[in-house]
């Protein structure tokens, strides 16, 4: 029995050698590792925030920095490219906080597309120039040039299956795009 077991383990290990594939990186970094360009904007906009978690990430060769923090009791995630340009700011909100017309539109999309659905997470996404976004955060001034979208993570069931989705909706509630969220294997939690 012992021999069988060792053989089993050895076989598994050999399999590993050829199994490594790595494309995406996303790791926690220290503030000191964040480029000055990125920090400058950040410190102007979020003046009084001291607790910030910084992340470095690459997705298909595109590098960006992400700051996660709490501002006015809401979770903010700010994605910034290495030159210091803001890619977007995402703020976690309740689904019910969505502007009511847009919310109706999104809900009717859910009802038309799925027999059963459940919203798991809602984020409001802001896109705009660094200056406009800074004014939005520290002065509460909303420029007309800022684009607002809703990024919603939801579970949907229809005849094609039961999946977890991430949908991006514009400020009127119109679907821009959606993608399936692949849930990582659960074998370590199940057996």
């Amino acid at each position: 029995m012992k021999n069988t077991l060792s053989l089993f383990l050895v076989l598994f290990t050999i399999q590993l050698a050829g199994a490594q594939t790595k494309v995406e990186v996303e790791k926690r970094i220290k503030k000191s590792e964040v480029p000055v360009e990125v920090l400058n904007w950040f410190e102007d906009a979020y003046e009084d925030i001291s607790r910030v978690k910084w992340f470095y990430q690459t997705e298909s060769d595109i590098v960006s920095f992400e700051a996660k923090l709490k501002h006015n009791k809401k979770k903010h995630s700010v994605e910034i490219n290495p030159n210091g340009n803001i890619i977007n700011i995402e703020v976690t909100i309740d689904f019910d906080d969505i502007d009511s017309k847009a919310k109706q539109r999104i809900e009717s999309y859910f009802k038309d597309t799925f027999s059963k659905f459940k919203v798991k997470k809602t984020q409001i996404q802001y896109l705009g120039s660094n200056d406009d976004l800074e004014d939005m955060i520290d002065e509460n001034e909303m420029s007309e040039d800022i684009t607002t979208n809703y990024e919603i993570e939801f579970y949907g069931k229809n005849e094609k299956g039961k999946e977890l989705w991430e949908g991006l909706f514009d400020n009127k509630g119109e679907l821009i795009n959606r993608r399936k969220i692949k849930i990582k294997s659960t074998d370590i939690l199940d057996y």
Partner: protein
Amino acid sequence: MRNHLFLIITIALALVCQKQFAQDNRFISGFFPEASLSYKLNKTYSVTHKVESQNGVYDNQSSLNDEWKYNHRQTDLQTFLGRRLTPFIKVDIGYQYRMQDGENTNRTIQQISILQRQSNLRIGHRIRTDQTFFKNAAPLWRVRYRLKSQIPLQGFEVDPGEKYLSFSNEIIYMYQSGEDDIENRVTASLGFYFNDKNKLEIGLDYRTDDYLVENRFRHRLWFKVGFYKSL
């Protein structure tokens, strides 16, 4: 959430320690390798085979005053048929054949597993019932609940090539011919997430039982290595 988990583990350990000093008890330790292989049959159904083996190297109540000694305690072969109900809920039925000194046993298993996703960790809840059958004794019935967390060590999600920490606690209530007992299992391990199909966990598994048996208590501390493979 992380705080809650530590709290649960701390309370469990505190309970265990309290018992430890109160009673005459037995301590066993050893090596516990396990490996699992999962594959999909179709979109809904999957199969998991698992082999696990307890190999004792220390027993403070060994009959020959021979505390350090290798002994094969048991090896389990398990097979599960799982059905995914939603991305978060999975049900399984399983069968286990246990090889050990004396009598080999058969066990039937039913379980439901629920995945809870937090922003920076994953928690798996597992409720399991099992029935073990013996030749000359009544069946042993057990109900168990396990909570296991997977905490990334880099970033907010575990990516290929990264490591994670894993903690779990499982409480087992068992019943056999009029007598019952409780067993508790705490584990802490370091996980290597090579990719989604290959994971390795190395850690400790601390089991205590005979909670409801008077003047007896048993601790088992296993050094555990587990490989999780899916096709």
